[in-house]
């Protein structure tokens, strides 16, 4: 199984480390052509404005096309902003792969960044979650399942093949959320094999 990590900028190394610990072949993706041969893609934390500006040659458009065909994608923090259909206070969104609205820096500035234990539906009731200038989910469409909440705000969600989180499982040694995503990738591979 080969899973790509969008490697324009941000916490790329951390996701690749976890994938390698789970014995998954992780690949850096900087260009659209590097998307071929993958069974899933992770959009890491970083600065969403910089990542979107620097994604060359319709890389994000290609990611959107894959998402609409059922290809599994997981976005953390900035990755979640890139995948959302709507970004508060901003006319345009980027990939538009999941029917949610997000608010940038909703948890506040860096002095308000925090760690907490989260209950993540179907994954864990004690997941150590690291929130850094985190975006929150402010609206979810039909077909979107909220998987975790923090103080009433939705912070993790899934719509079919697209998984998003406000926080950074890649900054911890807890691999349960990555395993959950790998489960999604396995289902996709099995379905593709049948087709």
């Amino acid at each position, binding site marked *: 199984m080969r899973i790509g990590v969008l490697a324009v900028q941000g916490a790329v190394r951390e996701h690749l480390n976890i994938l390698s610990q789970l014995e998954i072949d992780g690949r850096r993706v900087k260009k659209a052509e590097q998307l071929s041969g993958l069974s899933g893609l992770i959009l890491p934390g970083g600065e969403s404005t910089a990542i979107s500006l620097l994604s060359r040659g319709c890389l994000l458009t290609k990611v959107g096309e894959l998402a609409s065909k059922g290809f599994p994608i997981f976005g953390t923090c900035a990755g979640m902003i890139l995948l959302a259909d709507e970004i508060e206070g901003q006319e345009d969104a980027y990939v538009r792969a999941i029917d949610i609205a997000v608010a940038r820096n909703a948890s506040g500035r860096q002095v308000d*960044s925090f760690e907490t234990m989260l209950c993540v539906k179907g994954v864990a009731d004690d997941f150590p979650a690291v929130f850094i200038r985190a975006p929150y989910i402010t609206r979810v469409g039909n077909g979107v399942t909220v998987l975790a909440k923090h103080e009433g705000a939705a912070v993790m969600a899934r719509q079919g093949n697209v998984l998003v989180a406000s926080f950074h499982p890649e900054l911890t040694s807890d691999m349960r959320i990555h395993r959950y995503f790998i489960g999604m990738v396995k289902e996709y591979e099995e379905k593709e094999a049948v087709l």
Partner: protein
Amino acid sequence: MVEKGTYRVKSGLAEMLKGGVIMDVTTADQAIIAERAGAVAVMSLERVPADIRAQGGVARMADPARVKEILAAVSIPVMAKVRIGHFVEAQVLEALEVDYIDESEVLTPADPQYHIDKWAFTVPFVCGARNLGEACRRIAEGAAMIRTKGEPGTGNVVEAVKHMRLMNKQIRMVLSASTGELMSIAKEMGAPYQVLLAIREKGRLPVVNFAAGGIATPSDAAMMMQLGCDGIFVGSGVFKSGDPEKRARAIVEATTHYKEPKIVASVSEGLGEAMVGISIDEIPPHEMMQVR
């Protein structure tokens, strides 16, 4: 339970900036230019290093009104510089809710002997270093991010190269040493033993290490990335050049695509004048900022 200001939260923000460029800005307008060019953060200060060098005088933390304007103008993280040892300037910047504090040799030191106790703060700190011992001391004081010192405000990358190569070499030495040799290395480098243990556990510096001090061109940025740094600080290089918008974008592109000379070549075309550089030998010893 919610815990703020943990070391994981502090160093985590720096991890998110990897592969990006952080630009010195003195006004909100410059901050907006930096953000639009793809900067991952901006660094607020009173005067850019080249002006501090030219004008002399005591260089201090920026005016809080300016810092607030910059905080309001952009959505990317805002860092700000304080003088070495000036813990009250740091308290002021924390009260303003800047996202990172740079305890910087670019400003005039406020304490000739001691750095700030950075564990006492919720806001994270970045500090400069010329070698591994210095980097490890700053980490032991609570710094959650390291950058090379280079020689700021010169537009001359040679010192940053020297510092990055030395740190890499010393890290290799720590990684290949036997456990029995480690204490002696700690003594020679002036590096706290516990931080050296952390380096051996991670196989690298336990925090992010950016390049800073003298980076003026896209090729400078790509070279520092190829030497193994995690990202780039550009001080005077952008806003002291002929076409800041274009140069800012070019340095960002070269940092992202640092392994692709064709992209570095194409973004380097027609950037206008680079900042005027200074040869290190022309700087009188007492004006060297890196020894602070």
